């Protein structure tokens, strides 16, 4: 990617200028379960790459337009899995009609984008039609990539194929797994093992593989988050400090601003401008305001730029542009409530504006005799907007399956991310595209996990997650709280961004970590209703369910979430010192509103023999009414490190309430 790594503090510009302790991920292998890879992309060049790690046992599987020579020291392995999806669609995939490759080759472009975001090599002068230009690179540019194609363009990713990808990735020896995919709500319980990502990732994590997954794009609605198993690192999406402002010059020579990715060669000057309602097939049809398919009159719309309003956050700008283009419109100005995520419209120029600008343009249309507008080309501007902001589309917590597990864990750049892509026209050319989604945020965190792993080789997936969560940032570029884009704008809370915005430099040296063993996860599963019989099949070691209370609250997560606090509850945690041997940490408490919080002990003194220390945190409610979640934090600090755990607590005074 360009810009996103500098934005989050990784400022290496070439392999010769190292400014990080992370070795740029050298020696680690990132597995990407996605739609495959376009191996000819310069992002997958193995220039400057070290030898293939000795623990690698994978292969470069042949297939259509893909052979073993497509792998190199960057792209060390590639496999494809299709049997599960073929049986779902009950037919073979027709490579001509379905525009697919029966091989690891990526038809969709999504897997190429995510893989290059995680570990792409340095590529000079990358851009999308001149936009977002710069040196493109992955977050761990010296890490190796193993590609597992289990997702098929237009068909999705089948459980059976995903599980086989997990099985092979575990065999092959990957260190990190990145999955930018998931299901929609209602979620299947990972407790009854009907969620194949939860099942596969459990076994991966129990073998020391860190699994990073996207949170989903069903935001900003609460409780929409996916991939919520506690052994997964779940990633929400944020904006970066880059925008593509586009001037719209109105016929009265007033200039208003939107954003666009349209860099068409022709700039055709002033053109007729109208509002969709004025060119509706049926003027009484309210849906014409929103440019729904078939609502525009081709005679009236022909040759004009059409202004459309969208009430929904789910309106697809590309589909709206199709409606306008089909009616003969030559440009689209779409007013939407949020600013995140710019699509590329192929047929006609598209500019996205907010409601304020949209209304301003509409007022001009209503007063002008012959409204005109000129759509100018966008520019790439960096550093002028407060950022990051949690993206509107990023799925929100709390988890609908296990509300005691805070999700997402962290947030990372996922809006208008430039990375390698399948070339348009499928020629073997270098191609880059700007995409938005939690899919784009996920490989950012997978890369940072690889950076951590390359330095701290013995750290468990839970320790790596802890480092990411406890060091994440709470502040934007203006020094104020990070905000979230949504139906309204408000300060982001842990259900929007977990621990906060990922901070790779601080995550490298977190000071303390909250570690979790496989046995701890199994005790957590006991608390969720697993039986001893099913528990015994999950590991080779014989483990029985403990009878202790609050097992789900006492899982040693780097966060504390209490969904149903009635009177008082005490949770326990243990921290492992991974910093200076003789360290003294003090507790800094920020209790949620209406909650009393007491941490014991207040001081943790580590030395050569005392590396792990437990503490208790007791929470009691002072609320007299039913309350929604309130947020706070607990930070352990030695003056150098700030190990911050987000806290979310909901007071429930009664089981239920009545009107009486």
């Amino acid at each position, binding site marked *: 990617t360009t810009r996103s790594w500098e934005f989050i503090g990784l400022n290496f510009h070439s392999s010769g200028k190292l400014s990080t302790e992370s070795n740029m991920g050298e020696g680690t292998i990132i597995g990407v379960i996605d739609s495959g890879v376009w191996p000819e992309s310069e992002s997958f060049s193995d220039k400057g790459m070290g030898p293939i790690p000795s623990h690698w046992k994978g292969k470069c599987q042949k297939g259509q337009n893909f052979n073993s020579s497509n792998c190199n020291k960057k792209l060390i392995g590639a496999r494809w899995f299709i049997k599960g999806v073929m049986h779902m669609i009950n037919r073979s995939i027709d490579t001509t009609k379905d525009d697919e490759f029966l091989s690891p080759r990526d038809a969709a472009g999504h897997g190429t984008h995510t893989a290059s975001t995680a570990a792409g090599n340095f590529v000079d002068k990358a851009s999308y039609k001149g936009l977002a230009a710069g040196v493109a690179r992955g977050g761990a540019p010296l890490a190796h990539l193993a590609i597992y194609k289990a*997702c098929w363009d237009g068909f999705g990713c089948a459980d*059976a194929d995903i599980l086989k990808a997990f099985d092979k990735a575990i065999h092959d020896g990957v260190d990190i797994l990145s999955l930018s995919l998931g299901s929609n709500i209602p979620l299947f319980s990972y407790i009854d093992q009907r969620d194949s990502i939860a099942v596969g990732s459990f076994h991966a994590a129990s073998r020391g593989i860190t699994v990073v997954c996207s949170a989903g794009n069903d935001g900003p609605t609460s409780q929409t988050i996916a991939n919520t198993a506690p052994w997964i690192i779940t990633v929400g999406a944020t904006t970066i400090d880059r925008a593509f402002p586009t001037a719209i010059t109105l016929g009265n020579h007033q200039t208003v601003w939107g954003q666009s990715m349209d860099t068409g060669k022709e700039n055709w000057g002033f053109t007729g401008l109208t509002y969709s309602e004025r060119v509706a097939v049926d003027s009484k049809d309210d849906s014409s305001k929103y440019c729904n398919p078939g609502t525009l009159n081709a005679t009236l719309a022909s040759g004009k730029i059409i202004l459309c309003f969208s009430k929904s956050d789910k309106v697809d700008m590309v589909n709206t542009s199709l409606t306008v283009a089909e009616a003969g419109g030559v440009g689209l100005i779409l007013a939407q409530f949020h600013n995140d995520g710019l699509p590329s419209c192929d047929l006609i120029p598209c500019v996205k504006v907010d409601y304020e600008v949209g209304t301003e343009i509409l007022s001009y249309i209503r007063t002008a005799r012959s409204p005109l507008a000129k759509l100018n080309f966008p520019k790439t501007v960096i550093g002028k907007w407060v950022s990051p902001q949690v993206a509107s589309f990023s799925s929100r917590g709390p988890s609908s399956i296990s509300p005691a597990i805070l999700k997402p864990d962290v947030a990372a750049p996922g809006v208008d991310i430039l990375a390698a892509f399948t070339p348009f026209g499928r020629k073997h050319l270098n191609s880059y595209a700007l995409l938005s989604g*939690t899919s784009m945020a996920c490989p950012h965190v997978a890369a940072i996990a690889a950076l951590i792993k390359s330095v701290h080789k013995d750290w468990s997936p839970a320790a790596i997650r802890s480092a990411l969560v406890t060091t994440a940032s709470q502040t934007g570029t203006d020094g104020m709280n990070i905000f979230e884009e949504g139906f309204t704008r408000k300060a982001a809370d842990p259900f929007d961004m977990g621990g906060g915005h990922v901070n790779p430099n601080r995550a490298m040296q977190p000071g303390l970590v909250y570690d979790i063993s496989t046995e701890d996860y199994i005790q957590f599963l006991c608390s969720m209703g697993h039986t001893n019989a099913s528990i015994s099949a999950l590991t080779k070691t014989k483990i029985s369910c403990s009878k202790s209370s609050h097992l789900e609250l006492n899982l040693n997560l780097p966060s504390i979430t209490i969904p149903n606090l009635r009177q008082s509850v005490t949770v326990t945690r243990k921290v492992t010192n991974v910093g200076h041997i003789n360290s003294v940490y003090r507790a800094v408490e920020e209790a949620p509103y209406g909650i009393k919080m007491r941490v014991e002990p207040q001081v943790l003194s580590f030395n050569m023999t005392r590396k792990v220390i437990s503490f208790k945190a007791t929470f009691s409610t002072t609320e007299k009414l039913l309350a929604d979640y309130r947020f706070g934090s607990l930070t352990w600090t030695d003056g150098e490190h700030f190990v911050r755990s987000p806290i979310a607590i909901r007071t429930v005074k009664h089981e239920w309430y009545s009107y009486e």
Partner: protein
Amino acid sequence: DASTNVYIVYMGENKYEDPVTITKSHHKLLSTLLGSKEAAMRSILYSYKHGFSGFAARLTETEAKNIAEFPGVLQVIQNGIFKLH
């Protein structure tokens, strides 16, 4: 066959170290259900044998219910679809 769907027969952690032995155990289990080794070979899509134990196979709803009762079978999951984010 329209009457069959793909099911994932999940058996938890591998009991054996050797992948060949694990695959054989999957075939044996499926042969017992379907009545022959040939039927098992036709039915099986994948054998999961490295990270965990289990297999994906084409089964009728009744066969899926029956195999869920076999010793060592932890869960039978019907194949579903995930979407890219």
